[in-house]
Each structure stands twice: as C-alpha cells, then as structure tokens.
C-alpha cells in the first residue's frame, strides 16, 4: 500500500507561476482524474511531480510514502516508483523500444547485476500480448515517426513493463481515434489493481467512459476547484468549463 501526496504545490516556469497551490492524495488502487481546460497547468503539474528541471517548485511538497521526493532527480523518482506517460513523448532515433526498456530495467538493478536477457524478452512479449501489441513494434526506434496512437501505445507498454507504484497519465487519450482509445483504455484497465495508483489527466470526459475513475477533480488556473466522483465528469461534460468559471466567479 503506497501513498502519493501533493501538498499545496506551487510550480513556476521561469518567473511565471503556473500551479498555484494544489493538494491531492492518491492511494494505491485508486484512479483519480484531473479534468481542465487547455493551458490550466495540467502538464506542468505532471512534469513537476516527475522532476523536470525547468519547472521550479516554489513552495509545497510532494511525498511518496511520507517522504519528500523533491530533492530527487527525475531518474531517482522514476526508480522510486513514479511513471509519467507523456502528452508529447520524445523520439529517440536509433534506439529500439526493446533496447530502451532493457536499459530502463537494467538501471533499476543493483550495480554489477546483469539483466537476464531471455527472461526480459519473455516478460516483454507477455506484456505485449496482454496489450495486443504486434511483436514487430518493439524493434522500431522509440517514438521515431510514430503516429499519435502508436506513441501512446508505446507509453502504455513502458508503463506495463516498469510497473510503477504511481502513474501520471497526461492526456493519454489526446489524438486517438475511438479504436486506439479503446486499446489504450483496455491496457490501463488490465494494469489497474491494488498496487497501482493512477492520476489520469484529460481534457475530455470521453476517456472516462472507458477508464472509470474513483475520483474526479476539476483543475482551473493552476488549482483544483472542484472534486467529486465520476458523476462530476458527466456534469462537466454537459455544462462545459464555463460552468466552472461561473461558479468560481460567484464564490
């Protein structure tokens, strides 16, 4: 049982404050969704938690099982059990997905320990079967010339292989047609379980038809302004983000 706590987090890019005091606690087994309009700071939040060096945390804290992770480098946070599925994954020309994941696995092993190659491939292939990914896929260079759907599928495969404690999934649904969306959602659903906590970041309610969240939060202008269960997502879908804006104006 693990716990990821975001406590009154403020994040700035350069001088500009983007995340303005955001708190959230996610337990293993839970799926939280954050919904919010474009430019509200969703990606900033996820990258700051993952440890992007360009994002300055001006105050607040992020704790994994009670310990602050803010002093850790991005790779240390990853090895501690965080995973970020990127909205815009980077391309790594010349490095196959299989080799990339192998290096990532190897990086998790103690110095001097060598990853068992055949066991690794066995595991890789079983995960690919589970996610209905073609065997040829992993010999392609990471994200190099991939379609939007392929990129997202590549993220899901990495997540399945790395088995994080917490996954931050940033608009994993964007740019996907309905078939691709279903495949990606199926993937997440198969990984769901008592050992995984998920923060699902999305602009649209659509994804939440396939991945049913336990909690839904609405993000606006760098803060969470509303929280509820999955019915909040439907309400938001029906009334639009202007509804949130109006409510906020009243408050």
């Amino acid at each position, binding site marked *: 049982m693990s716990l990821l706590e975001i406590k009154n987090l403020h994040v700035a890019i350069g001088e500009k404050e983007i995340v303005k005091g955001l708190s959230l606690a996610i337990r293993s087994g839970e799926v939280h969704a954050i919904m919010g309009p474009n430019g509200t700071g969703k990606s900033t939040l996820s*990258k700051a938690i*993952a*440890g*992007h*060096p*360009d994002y300055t945390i001006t105050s607040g804290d992020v704790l994994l099982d009670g310990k602050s992770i803010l002093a850790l*480098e*991005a*790779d240390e*946070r*990853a*090895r501690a059990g*965080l*995973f*970020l599925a*990127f909205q815009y*994954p*980077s*391309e*790594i*020309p*010349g*490095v196959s997905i299989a080799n*990339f*994941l192998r*290096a*990532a696995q190897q*990086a*998790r092993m103690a110095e001097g320990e060598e990853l068992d190659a055949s066991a690794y491939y066995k595991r890789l292939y079983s995960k690919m079967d589970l996610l209905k990914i073609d065997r040829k896929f992993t010999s392609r*260079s990471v994200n190099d010339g991939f379609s939007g759907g392929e990129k997202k599928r590549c993220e899901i495969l*990495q997540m399945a292989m*790395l088995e994080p404690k917490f996954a931050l999934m940033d608009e994993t649904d964007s740019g996907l047609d309905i078939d691709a969306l279903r495949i990606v959602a199926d993937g997440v659903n198969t990984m769901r379980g008592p050992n995984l906590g998920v923060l699902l970041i999305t602009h649209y309610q659509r994804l939440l038809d396939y991945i049913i969240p336990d909690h839904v939060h609405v993000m606006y202008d760098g803060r969470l302004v509303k929280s509820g269960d999955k019915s909040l997502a439907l309400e938001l879908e029906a009334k639009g983000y202007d509804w949130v804006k109006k409510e906020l104006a009243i408050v």
Partner: protein
Amino acid sequence: MSQPLDTDTLETAAENPVVGIDQSRGDFKYDVNYEFDAGTGLNENTVRYISSVKKEAPWILDFRLKALKTFLDKPMPTHWATKDLENIHFDKIRYYLSSGQKPKRTWDEVPDDIKKTFERLGIPEQERKFLAGVEAQFDSEAAYSNIKDLVAKQGVIFANSTEALREHPEIFRKFFGKVIPTGDNKFSALNSAVFSGGSFIYVPPGVKVAQPLQAYFRINAENFGQFERTLIIADEGSEVVYMEGCTAPKFSTSTLHSAVVELVALKGAKIQYITVQNWANNVFNLVTKRGVAHEEAEIKWIDCNIGSRLTMKYPGVVLKGRKARGEVLSIALANDGQHQDTGAKMIHAADETTSNIIAKSISVGQGRSTYRGVVHIPKHLKGCKNNTECDALLINANSRTDTYPAISVRGDRHAVQHEASVSKVSADQIFYMQSRGLTEGQAMSLSVNGFINDLARQFPMEYSVELKRLIDLEMEGSVG
C-alpha cells in the same frame, strides 16, 4: 573560416596512382649502430639513423631523405585547416625510439582514471600494461605468428613494414608511396621520412582471407607507433579485412602521430579497413589514408575516431577502374578540448564507379567536429554515383560542428545525392529517458548509441561492444 580541401594533388593521384616503378634494387647493408641516438628534432641524421637501424636498402634511405626535404619545404596547411597545427613543435619531438629507449614507467605511476578506464572497458590485464606505457612491447607475438602462419599457407604475406620492404621488395616497392605520394601533404611527407612500424600485406589472386587480419593481433607496439606505415595489396579477385586499434585510450608520451595507409585493390578485389582509435587528449593525430580501386574492385574504410587534441583524417578512394566501388563509414566523437576534423575523399576516375560516404560526428561540451569531404567526378565520365550523408549530433550548447562538403561533379550523366543533418540531444529527450529511470549519463549515451547505431552495426562485434562501453564512459564523464 576554413575552406574545402584542395583536390589538385588528388587529381594527380587519380591519374597516376601506381606508376613510376623504380628498378634499382637494394642489396646494400648498413652497419647498425645501436648506440646512435636520434635525439629530439628532425634532420638528415635522424632519418639516416632510422634507416640504418632498420637495415634498409639504399633506395629506401633515398626515399626518406627526399621526403624529409619535401616535408621541410611544405608549409602547414593552415590556409584551410586549423591554426592549432602551429602548436606542433617539431624540434621537440622524438622521431624514433628503439625499444631500449622507450620511457619507463611503473604501474603505480599510471593515473588512477586511466586504470579505471581500462577496467571499465574490460581490457585484458596484459594489454593494460602495454597501453599504459608500462611495457614497451605487448606480448602478442605468439598470436601474431599464428595468424601469419595460417594465412601464409594461402600465400598471403603479412609482415611489418621493415620486414616486408627488406624481404619482398619485388612486391611492395611497386606500390609503396604510389597511392599516397610523398608530397601529398606535409604529414605524408613527414611519415615518408621517418616511418616505422605498420603492416604490409599482400593477398594473392583469388584468395579470400577468412578471418580479419588484425594489427599484430589486437595491439602492438609498432602499430601504435607514431609514424606507422601500412600498405595492403589485394591481388585480382582476392578479399581481405584488416583491423587496427582498440577503444582503450592510448596513454602516450608522444604528442604527434602521423600515419600513412595505402591500399591497392586490383581487379575485382575487396579490401575492408577498420580503425578504432582513442588517443589521449594531448595528441595530434594527422593521418593520410587512401586506396586505389581498380576495375570492379571495392574498398571500404570504417573509421572511428575518439579522443586526441586534433585529428585530421580523410580516408579516400581513387576509383580507377570501371565499376569500382568506394565507401567511407566514419564516426568521430569530440569531447571537451578535442577537435575531430574528419571526412572522406572520393575521386572518380572511371565510368560507372560508385561511392558512398556516411559520416557521423558527435560533439560534446566544448568538443568540435568538422566534416570535410571531396567528391570529384570529372566531365568525361558517365554513369557514376555518389551518396554522401553527414550527420552531426550536438550534446550541450557549446558544441560546435562544421560541414565542408566539396562535391565537384561535372557533366550530367551522374547520380549524386547529398544529405546533411545536425541534431541536438534536447533537454526534453534527456528528461524523457530519465523519467524511465535512466541517469542523465545513461540517457546521453543511449542517445549517442542510437545516433550511430546503423553504422556501429556494420562493425565487427567486439568493436561495436567496446565502442558502446566507451561511449557510456565518455558520456558519464561529461555529466556535471
């Protein structure tokens, strides 16, 4: 601003690469005076000393003395190359050291970081001592004579340059200094005056040498010498692969290395020449490499340059016969304080000749890479093809890369393709990999390995594995 290479001398080589056979044969023996000290600096006595130690025939001494004059007469090529060349102090260099004179050093005196590097690269224990300059001669004689005996059964001559010029002048003299004339450039002239070490190989017609011939096994004192000279002749329809160097840093006291490598592929022959070198970063590495490919012959250079203060090296192929093929695949890695000035020359001198150049450079930190290429296809030819690709990868903002592709293609009966790219390892790319658990250093080496992957795959297995390890080390070291 640098300028493209001058093609005049190459023209000459293309028109007349292997003629001018000298009929005078040497049977005169010099008395060897081992007490003679060549000392520092370069003059006629230095050259005479080297020649006498090697018991060379008079024509070789004569060749050397003429070369010395050419060397002294020729200006530094600083009109197109870097001014850093002016920092070579020719009068402070020792041009020849017999084994007894090699500086002695104990294992304890070898810096810790060098020792660590050997360990990380997995360099065998005995080789470490040689590479660190503790032992003057790596004991690879046994392995060397095994290979020599094995290929000798097929009629292959595989010997060091001294031995070969002495024992097989009828074969080697005809080609020696013909592919790369003494006056090709200042450094080929220098090498011609003071050369020592290097391999001479002759492969008889139709013989396909099964295993790659390595420079006396993996490493050898003479092949790591300052001025080695290599000549490979593949007779009609024969095939040979030659490998030199290794990825371990050569911890050297000398600061100038200037080799000359000549290849001759006669009709239908194939030569592949593979180099992986990693010089200490105080070394000027100025090497001239060229091959002549006759009708339907093929010459392929695989050249991998790491380390050194300045490397200038442009392997070339003179495509002399119809349907000859030439290829240069090169990788250069310039880390802080290093300048890799590398490239390729393809001189088309017959119809339907094809050439391919793929050059990849990596600049790290303040490291600087320069690509210089010459592709020359004269007007009177037809059906020639060239493909040139140069890709540069920059890591960290200060890195610098320049490309000077000189493609002179006359006439419209040829197919020429040229592509160049410069890419950066971006902060986002590094973050992406770090978010998967790779350290910054691991992320960088993965990017670099990905960048060279398609070329490295063509290397022999042991070289590509070593290369990968070396890149890991270089990248780890470059992370602040």
